[in-house]
């Protein structure tokens, strides 16, 4: 089954390119560390999922590129075409001349309705190329105007038009200190709207990825390209093909459905975080070996201590002893907090993957009380190594990962809202103070719900 990706705005398009590039490079990587037959099956599955084929054999990304100004899309299209290995469809993009000005209201209320038909048609055409549609990725940032506002509108649209298909929004969380001054407003409006229309929000934080580039990849002068490549790697490690079940060697056909079923049991809890391990520069890779036991131990500790990467993990944090109540409701101010999960998905790729021991992830102490661990934890596997890592493990978690960042954004937006600063820019285009209040209410509810998981 295929996934159609909608790339929105500068961020969405820049990242989308890196994602397809990473997926393609990995699937054509010679170091799969598996049999030829296995490799071919992997490639075929990846292709079906993410690429369609043209007559002269160059795969075309199953993607629709949308931006309200032309510079980035032009760059993205030419970068893909220049690579010679894959490309975007010639008519897969929709572009306007004047951007959204970092204004969520403009993206949502002006661009959205104005271009609804054109964008819907483009998506429809892409969907028709699929033999069977698994669902949609929507890649967008929260901070700007197009990705955030138009992204929210398009997601709503997809909900109406494709109510049977799944939608996962890949949301880029901006740096805490300003890329855009009104980023907190744009973020809360985006999140509150997506909460109502999306099936899952997979969040990627710029700050976290930046640290990975600095500390693990040892990049000196980090560019957005570096950040986007690390992000693409994380996404690839989740969504490249995996076996459909324990003991099976056929590749899973419904990754989105399986993921949603496992990770989003309740519509109040849609915020997913992703971690992967190991992550290092290619030079270091040649000199490293890993064991599944070591990787999983680190990954589990990253989960329960809410570490964003494998360095600086706090090993002091421990799950509460079973049977005893947790230390009360999660306090947003406490430092050493244990991260309670609703559900987790671990994805293992590489040599001897079947020998990996995952019992520690099934410990009921990790999870909130209202799901059995057997339902709360799932694992996907493949022997085929990912992107030259002999062994790699990824974690997609529906847990308290994002409570603190969300709380910070809501807090800052609230402070700004109290002074009414910048509100005139939004009311100009039909987003009223009431809409802001609705968003605040919804998100405070989400924060409270996640905080209470410990009970």
């Amino acid at each position: 089954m295929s996934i159609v990706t909608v790339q929105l705005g500068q961020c969405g398009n820049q990242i989308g390119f890196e994602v397809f590039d990473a997926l393609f490079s990995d699937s054509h990587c010679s170091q799969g560390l598996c049999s030829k037959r296995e490799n071919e099956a992997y490639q075929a599955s990846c292709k079906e999922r993410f690429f369609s084929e043209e007559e002269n054999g160059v795969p075309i990304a199953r993607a629709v590129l949308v931006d309200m100004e032309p510079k980035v899309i032009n760059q993205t299209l030419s970068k893909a075409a220049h690579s010679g290995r894959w490309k975007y469809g010639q008519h897969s993009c929709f572009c306007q001349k004047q951007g959204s000005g970092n204004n969520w209201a403009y993206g949502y209320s002006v661009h959205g309705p104005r271009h609804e038909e054109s964008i819907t048609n483009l998506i429809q055409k892409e969907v028709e190329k699929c033999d069977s549609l698994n669902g949609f990725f929507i890649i967008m940032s929260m901070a700007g105007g197009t990705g955030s506002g138009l992204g929210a509108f398009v997601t709503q649209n997809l909900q109406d038009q494709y109510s049977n298909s799944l939608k996962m929004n890949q949301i880029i969380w901006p740096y805490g200190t300003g890329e855009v001054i009104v980023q907190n407003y744009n973020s809360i409006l985006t999140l509150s709207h997506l909460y109502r229309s999306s099936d899952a929000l997979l969040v990627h934080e710029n700050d976290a990825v930046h640290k990975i580039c600095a500390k693990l990849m040892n990049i000196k002068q980090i560019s957005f390209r570096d950040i986007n490549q690390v992000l693409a790697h994380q996404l690839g490690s989740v969504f490249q093909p995996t076996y459909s079940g324990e003991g099976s060697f056929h590749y899973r056909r419904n990754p989105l459905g399986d993921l949603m079923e496992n990770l989003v049991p309740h519509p109040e809890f849609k915020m997913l975080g992703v971690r992967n391990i190991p992550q290092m520069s290619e030079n270091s890779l040649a000199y490293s070996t890993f064991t599944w036991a070591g990787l999983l131990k680190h990954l589990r500790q990253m989960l329960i201590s809410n570490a964003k990467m494998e360095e600086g993990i706090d090993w002091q944090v421990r799950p509460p002893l079973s049977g005893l109540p947790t230390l009360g409701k999660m306090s947003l101010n406490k430092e050493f907090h244990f991260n309670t999960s609703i559900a987790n998905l671990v994805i293992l790729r590489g040599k001897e993957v079947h020998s990996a021991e995952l019992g520690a992830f099934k410990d009921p102490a990790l999870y909130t009380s209202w799901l059995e661990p057997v339902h709360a934890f799932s694992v996907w596997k493949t022997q085929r190594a990912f992107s030259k890592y002999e062994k790699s493990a990824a974690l997609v978690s529906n847990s308290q990962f994002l409570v603190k960042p969300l709380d910070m954004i809501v807090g800052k937006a609230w402070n700004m809202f109290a002074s009414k600063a910048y509100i005139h820019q939004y009311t100009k285009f039909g987003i009223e103070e009431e809409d802001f209040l609705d968003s605040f209410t919804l998100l405070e509810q989400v924060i409270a719900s996640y905080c209470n998981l410990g009970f």
Partner: protein
Amino acid sequence: MTQSVVIQVGQCGNQIGCCFWDLALREHAAVNQKAIYDEAISSFFRNVDTRVVGDGGSISKGKICSLKARAVLIDMEEGVVNEILQGPLRDVFDSKQLITDISGSGNNWAVGHKVFGSLYQEQILEKLRKSAEHCDCLQCFFIIHSMGGGTGSGLGTFLLKVLEDEFPEVYRFVTSVYPSGEDDVITSPYNSILAMKELNEHADCVLPIDNQSLFDIISKIDLMVNSGKLGTAIKPMSLVTSSAGAFKKQQEKPFDAMNNIVANLLLNLTSSARFEGSLNMDLNEISMNLVPFPQLHYLVSSLTPLYTLADVNIPSRRLDQMFSDAFSKDHQLIRADPKHSLYLACALMVRGNVQISDLRRNIERLKPSLRFVSWNQEGWKTSLCSVPPVGHSHSLLALANNTCVKPTFIELRERFTRLYKKRAHLHHYLQIEGMEESCFTEALSSLSALIQEYNQLDATKSMPAEDLPRLSIAV
């Protein structure tokens, strides 16, 4: 891609405008080596087949035939505009896009605004509509003028209302040269305050400049160049004041060096909209991020570096120095000290070989020494444009919405009051039809209200930033 139209009004406006077009051509020539008419260059220039008579000559793609500036030149005296049209840039301007008169405004805002305003309103509208028609997607009008005289000040601000009514969707960015302390025009306080009211009400964004600051910057550069320490090691094209490589071979006019600084300001302001980069910033984003309340739309600007040393291996220390300089009071284009006042918002527009990590490192480094208003503690807007300015490997334009602009307004008000109390020269204004004393008092209260807003913000400066109680939810 969008287009912008530059409207240069009065002597000052036209002289600056002329430098701007000169440097714009230089910049595009440096970037666009194959002479293809692309979207970047179309933002400020039309491509015209000069063999075709009349209007049919516009070419939208392909090789550059003849570039015409998207400009409207307005002056109530002929001297400056004539000189432009006889100079090396004569072919860049469309001779139909001019409005001139002979007698001038006599340094009288009322003459510029009321007399010439009504006299030329139709013509102005016609020229503006023409220039808009030539645009695929017109985004912004850039108005360049001075505040202290009669034409730039009076007619320049009359224009704003016309633009607002006729093109409500198009942004109005105004570059205003404020009179310095030693200004020789006696009535400049009157003209400035009357113009301020119009700027308050009809401009989206104002970039105030003053001659003294420009002059100080030039003195600083001259000092460095002539001190012998750096001497010939400065790349001539990199001087923010230089016209090297541009059409005008010599800096004939005394104000050219100063005008080039302002021209560079406008180029850097629009660079991220015209050229590609990893974090673009369009003109509509400037207004969105830097104007938290409609009246507070005055942005203090600074440009760094002022020159580039000839040595190619620039250590990152120099890069960081560029960021530090942007906040020093010596680099601001108006007399202002942003570091000791309160920031409402700040934009950093970086060009050239600078990455996001450089930007973040410097923000982290400089943040503790800057004071931001409580509700915008992380009030940074940033952009990264890959194309550096001519002669540089990187550059930075900082735009600050900061209460440091207040002293300029207070001083202006004081000078106004001194004159007004004695009713000096008032009759020159009141004898103009449409002018009454209420024009003066209204303009004064408009300015006072603005100063009061800044005062209120400054009062919060010393208060600690407290988090407000949040909505409580019943779980």
